[in-house]
């Protein structure tokens, strides 16, 4: 199950790559992911895939008239389109999801409870390393 979800997450990262790059190398990258997953060593590929996505997207956007960086200040023409920003956020989310699936298979237990008749809520995260984090917020 975890394998199928992590494969789907990696496919989504690939899907967000520019079409030309994806058409040329996407199937090969997915095949490599499958091979590494069989060996149980696919976790680092999420970071690699996310960095690759950012690299390819930045490169494809960094054409003259669209985006230029001078003296550390970003000067934009039309600017980064909202869809690109959404893609970056989605890629980061997929990367985190992939890490959670591969690195923390049964270790993260999250629950949200509302105290009875109390205007507060509690979020508890438990890990098998006996570490426990309790966040309690009162409005």
């Amino acid at each position, binding site marked *: 199950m975890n394998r199928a979800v992590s494969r789907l997450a990696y496919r989504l990262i690939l899907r967000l790559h520019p079409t030309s790059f994806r058409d040329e190398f996407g199937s090969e990258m997915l095949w490599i992911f499958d091979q590494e997953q069989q060996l149980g060593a696919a976790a680092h590929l999420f970071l690699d895939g996310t*960095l690759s996505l950012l690299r390819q997207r930045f490169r494809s956007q960094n054409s003259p008239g669209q985006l230029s960086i001078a003296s550390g200040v970003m000067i934009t023409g039309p600017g980064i389109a909202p869809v690109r920003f959404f893609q970056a956020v989605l890629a980061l989310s997929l990367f985190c999801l992939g890490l959670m699936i591969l690195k923390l298979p049964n270790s993260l237990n999250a629950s949200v409870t509302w105290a009875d008749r109390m205007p507060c809520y509690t979020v508890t995260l438990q890990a098998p390393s006996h570490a426990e984090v309790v966040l309690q917020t009162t409005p």
Partner: protein
Amino acid sequence: MPAKTAKSPPLSAATLHILLALAGGNLHGYGIIKEVARNSDGHYRLGPGTLYDNLKKLISAGLVADVPTSSSTRKAASAKDDDRRFFALTREGKDALAKEVDRLQGVVTKARARLQEARTGRA
């Protein structure tokens, strides 16, 4: 003493490792990743994103080329690898690798000399 070579920019670590892996023979992407890990004793792990980004640049620069489907190298590969895309080092790629190795050799020679000086200076 290394041969005098034309000035060329240093190659990135990923590029150097990819060229070095392909110097041993034609490989597909996963083969390159495994060869790089083997050559570096597992210290350098190349991901497919980094690999294909670099391969794309190397192909455009003419240092690496796609191996045609009918190549004998592909025939020698296992049936599982049949539909994979293989890459080969071009003559320009071999030259670039040789220059980089010479450059690194020069760096190592200088570094050894400096260390030797430091040791003798301390003694």
